[in-house]
């Protein structure tokens, strides 16, 4: 299982849940690769220098690395904006299972929301001294805003889209209509979870982990 992590602060806030999922998957025979994309986490580089293509290259590299180090079929889990990155990867790289957690159907919605939040944080900071936000290169912002789930067909056998409520149901249904032509399984699922990517304290969402494991181990929910 290769994971495409969320971006910016959402990555930090999801980390405990992702690590917990990896330990659970190890229990049912899955190895997990959790990369920090270039310019994020422990990886080298600065965030403000990164472009969407750099991160796609990172994901392609990790997929190739997985293929040479492990003979098992490759599954990819994309979380939040990582889901759009994973879907990009899946247009060219053959993947057995693609799972998306709470991925915005439209990258521009995510970008606007994230920018609004950074402004709000700045307003609340004491004495006007706010910590700097996550700085994206203008070209990266353009790329993020252009990402639309379902804009391309996939080279993927099985697909599962999970959201926490029905707010994106109509959009996800459109995506499913596009992707089901090339995938033997293409499902959407609502699993009630807190918005773990936005909460300061880590939350382990067991139903989310359970549904993910069920899908991966062949017991389609």
């Amino acid at each position: 299982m290769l994971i495409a992590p969320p971006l910016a602060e959402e990555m930090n806030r999801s980390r405990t849940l992702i690590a917990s999922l990896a330990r659970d998957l190890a229990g049912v025979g899955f190895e997990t690769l959790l990369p920090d994309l270039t310019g994020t986490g422990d990886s080298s580089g600065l965030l403000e220098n990164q472009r969407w293509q750099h991160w796609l290259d990172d994901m392609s590299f990790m997929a190739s690395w997985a293929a040479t180090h492990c003979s098992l079929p490759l599954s990819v889990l994309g979380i939040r904006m990582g889901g759009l990155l994973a879907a990009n990867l899946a247009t060219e790289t053959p993947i057995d299972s693609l799972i998306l957690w709470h991925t915005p159907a439209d990258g521009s919605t995510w970008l606007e929301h994230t920018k609004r939040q950074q402004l709000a944080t700045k307003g609340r900071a004491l004495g006007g001294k706010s910590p700097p936000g996550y700085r994206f290169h203008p070209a990266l912002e353009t790329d993020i805003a252009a990402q639309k789930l379902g804009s391309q067909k996939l080279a993927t056998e099985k697909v599962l889209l999970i959201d926490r409520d029905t707010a994106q149901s109509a959009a996800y249904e459109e995506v499913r209509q596009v992707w089901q032509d090339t995938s033997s399984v293409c499902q959407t699922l609502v699993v009630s979870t807190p918005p773990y990517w936005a909460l300061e304290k880590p939350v382990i969402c067991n139903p989310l982990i359970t549904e993910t494991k069920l899908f991966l181990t062949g017991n389609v929910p």
Partner: protein
Amino acid sequence: MPIEAHIVRWQGGQSILVSEGPDSASAAIVVMVPGTPQTRVGTRRQFVLLARRLAENGISTVRFDRAGFGDSEGACLPLEPEAADLAAVMQHTKESTPDGEPVWLLGLCDDASQAALFAAANTPISGLILLNPWLEDTDNHNASENEAQFTHPSEGPRPTGLLRPTPNK
């Protein structure tokens, strides 16, 4: 700039520890404790960027996730001098650091308090760097029987007491 990952175990879990430092001999090593619920990279990667700046200036660093946070196993530990995860990381760091190289401890927010409690109760370390340490709020003692309450200085009443270890019951 060499960067390495190690696994450190303590009773109740294990942590991934990331160490990095200068290409040549290091003048000192700083163990960075991130402040819960942050992970070892820090908010907006501030701990990663600080570690790399320190390495450019001849100083090594060690970063790790506290128990129950990020990649680390186990449950979140209470604020107390023993701090099994920090103790294991400090022991690992001292064992893998050349004799005579100073070992410093840097903590942020609640983990600044944690660093001070640990330093007060354990074998001497070369120095402490406390970023925005939380102070004991003596007005709020009744809130919990078993642990002192720590309040951010910018929230609630101004603490009147100094930081001190959790009293043993």
